[in-house]
C-alpha cells in the first residue's frame, strides 16, 4: 500500500466521514451525542469543522432518528446516523427494516436512496444485556439494505467510504472492542473497500473459517496455534453480510472441503445459520464434514465481565471446533 498512517478503527471511520462531508454537502450526521460527545470518538471534532447544522445531537428517540434518516434520504440527502448500540435496532425496527429497507420497493420507485446507519455492536466488558448485542442478522433477513462489519481500521475507512457513495441504505456495524485498535490505514481520501467483497486474511488448505468483525482476530490466533499441529486454516473475513461474497466463500470451501463459521452474534438463527445452510446447499458434495458454527451462546449477555466472556467464542473454542472439523 502506498501511503498509510497508524489510525484507530473509530478514527478511520471518522476520516472517511470527514473527507466525504467536505466534498458532499448532502451528507449530515445525527445521533445522540454525535456533536457533544461522539460515538466513542469516531466523529471527534466533526461538529467543530461542520457546525451543528450538519452534526446534530438528537434526544433519546431511536425510532425518530432512523425514520428521519429515511425521510431525509428520499428527499435527496445522505444521512449518517449513529444508533448508539446494535441492541437499539429493536427500538427502531419499523423504521429500519420496513421504512429504510423497503420504502422504494413498496412505492415502486427505482431511485437512489442513501443512508448510513451506524450500529456499534458487541460486548465490551460489562455493558450488559441491552447494550452488547450483535444484531446484524436482522439486516440479513429483511431485504433492501446492505450490511457491513469491518474488522480492521483500514476496512472501517474503506467500507465507510463505500457506504457514503452507496445509493442504497447501509447498516454499518462498528465493533465496540475494536474502537481504539490501531491499524495501517491508507491516507487516500477515497480509499474504497467495495461492499459485497470478502477477503482472505490467511490462506490455508485444511478448512475454511468464515468470520467477520470481532472474531477475525481470535480466528487468526486459532489458525496460528493450529498451524503448529499441522492444521492449516484458511480464514476469510466476510466484511459484508449483505451481499455475502459467495464466489469467494464457495471457491474456498470447494478447495478445503471443510468449513466453519465464527461470530459473536448468538448462534441460533444467527448469521452462521444462513452461511452454513447456504454452503451445504451449494457445496454439499464437496464437504467432508458438516459446516460447524462457533458463536455466541443463546443467552442475553450478563454485565459481569467474567460471565460475559463465557458467552462469546474464545480462541480455545475456535481451536477445538477446528480440530473437530479437520480430524473428528
Amino acid at each position, binding site marked *: 500500500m502506498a501511503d498509510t498512517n497508524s489510525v484507530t478503527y473509530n478514527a478511520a471511520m471518522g476520516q472517511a466521514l470527514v473527507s466525504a462531508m467536505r466534498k458532499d454537502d448532502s451528507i449530515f450526521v445525527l445521533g445522540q451525542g454525535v456533536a457533544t460527545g461522539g460515538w466513542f470518538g469516531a466523529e471527534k471534532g466533526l461538529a467543530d469543522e461542520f457546525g451543528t447544522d450538519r452534526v446534530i445531537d438528537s434526544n433519546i428517540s431511536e425510532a425518530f432518528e432512523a425514520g428521519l434518516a429515511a425521510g431525509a434520504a428520499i428527499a*435527496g440527502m445522505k444521512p449518517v446516523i449513529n444508533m448508539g448500540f446494535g441492541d437499539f435496532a429493536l427500538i427502531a425496527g419499523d423504521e429500519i427494516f420496513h421504512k429504510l429497507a423497503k420504502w422504494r420497493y413498496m*412505492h415502486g420507485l427505482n431511485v437512489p436512496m442513501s443512508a448510513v446507519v451506524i450500529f456499534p455492536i458487541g460486548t465490551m466488558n460489562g455493558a450488559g444485556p441491552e447494550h452488547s448485542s450483535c444484531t446484524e442478522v436482522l439486516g440479513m433477513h429483511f431485504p433492501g439494505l446492505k450490511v457491513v462489519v469491518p474488522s480492521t481500521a483500514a476496512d472501517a475507512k474503506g467500507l465507510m467510504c463505500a457506504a457514503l457513495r452507496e445509493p442504497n441504505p447501509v447498516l454499518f456495524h462498528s465493533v465496540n472492542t475494536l474502537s481504539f485498535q490501531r491499524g495501517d490505514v491508507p491516507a487516500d481520501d477515497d480509499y474504497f473497500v467495495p461492499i459485497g467483497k470478502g477477503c482472505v486474511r490467511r490462506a490455508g488448505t485444511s478448512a475454511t473459517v468464515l468470520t467477520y468483525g470481532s472474531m477475525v482476530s481470535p480466528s487468526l490466533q486459532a489458525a496460528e496455534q493450529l498451524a503448529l499441529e499441522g492444521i492449516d486454516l484458511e480464514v476469510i473475513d466476510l466484511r459484508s453480510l449483505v451481499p455475502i461474497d459467495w464466489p469467494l466463500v464457495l471457491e474456498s470451501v470447494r478447495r478445503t472441503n471443510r468449513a466453519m463459521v465464527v461470530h459473536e452474534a448468538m448462534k441460533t438463527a444467527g448469521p452462521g445459520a444462513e452461511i452454513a445452510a447456504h454452503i451445504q446447499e451449494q457445496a454439499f458434495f464437496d464437504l467432508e464434514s458438516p459446516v460447524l458454527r462457533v458463536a455466541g451462546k443463546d443467552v442475553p449477555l450478563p454485565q459481569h465481565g467474567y460471565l460475559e466472556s463465557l458467552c462469546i467464542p474464545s480462541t480455545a473454542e475456535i481451536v477445538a471446533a477446528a480440530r473437530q472439523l479437520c480430524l473428528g
Partner: protein
Amino acid sequence: MNDKDVSRSTPGAEAVALMYRRMAITRAIEICMAKHVRNNRFSGWWHPGEGQEAAGIGATAAMQQDDYLFYQGRGCSWAIGKGMAPAPILGDLLGKPSGATGGKGGGVPHWSDYSIGVMGEGATLGSVYPLAAGAALAARLRGTGQVALANFGDGTAARGTFHETMVHAAAWKLPLIYFCENNEWLVGTPLKQVSPTENIADYAAGYHIPGVIVDGQDALAVYQVTTEAIARARAGEGPTLIEAKVFRKHGHYAGDPQHYRASNYLDTYRDPLDLLGTHLGDDQAADLREQATADVQSAYEAALAEADPEPDTIFKDLYYG
C-alpha cells in the same frame, strides 16, 4: 392556473375551481372503487374516504408543488389534491403496471410521485412522522424553503413517533406541519375510549407550538389554516399541529358492516363537495363533476383493460443500480 395562485390566504375563483375539480375527481374515484370492490374484483384493502375529502383537498391546495407530502391514505384526496392524475391511482388500485407502484401498492396505498412532492405512505401507521421531519430537515439544510406535511388519523396520534418527532421538530423549529384528520374512530373503537383528549390539537401545548382546530368538511377553512401554518413554517417559526374535525361516512374498510355504529350516524354528515360547491356557480360545479366522472371512468377502463404486471416485477426496485 399555476400553484402560486393558491398560496394566498383566500383562494381566487380559479383556485377554488381547481380544488373543486380535484375533490370531484377524488369523489369519482371513491365511487368507482366502492363499486369495484362490491363487484369483488379487488385484491387490495381499500379504506374509503368518500365524505372525508375536504381536508386533503384544502390542505394540499395550500402547499407548493415542491412541498413534501406524507399522507395516511383513507381514500385519495391527498394524492389527487397534490396533483396526481387518476390514471396512476386507479392503475395502482387495480394492480396494473400503469399504477404508480406498478402493482406493488394497492388498497393500503403507496402512491407516490416525487416530482410533485407526493412522498408516499407508511402502512405501519404513524411511521411517517419522522420521515416528514427528515424531509423538512433536508429542506432546511438546503435552504429551499420547502415545508413537509404529515397527514394522519386521530388514532395514529397515539403512536410514539408522534411524540418523538414533534419533540425535535418543535425544538429545532423545523418546517413541518402535523395534519390530523380526526374522524373520531380507529376502526371500530371510538377515540374517546382510548384517548385522554377529544382534541388531538391539545397535545400542541406541551411542545409550545400552535394547535389549531378546523372544520374538516370545509375545504376553504382547511385551506386557510394550512396556509397560515405553512407561512409560519417557511418563516422559520416551526411546526403547527392542525386538527381537522372530519366525518367518516363509510366503514373502516370497504365492506365493514359497522355493527359498532349507531344506525342514525349519518344524520350529522355534511357533504364536503356540496359545501365547496356553494362557492361555484351551479353550472360550473356540475360541469366539473361530469368531467371528473368521465375522466375517472376512462382511467378505470384503461386500467381494467391492461395486462397484469410481469412476474419479474417482484424483484425490481429492491436495490438501486
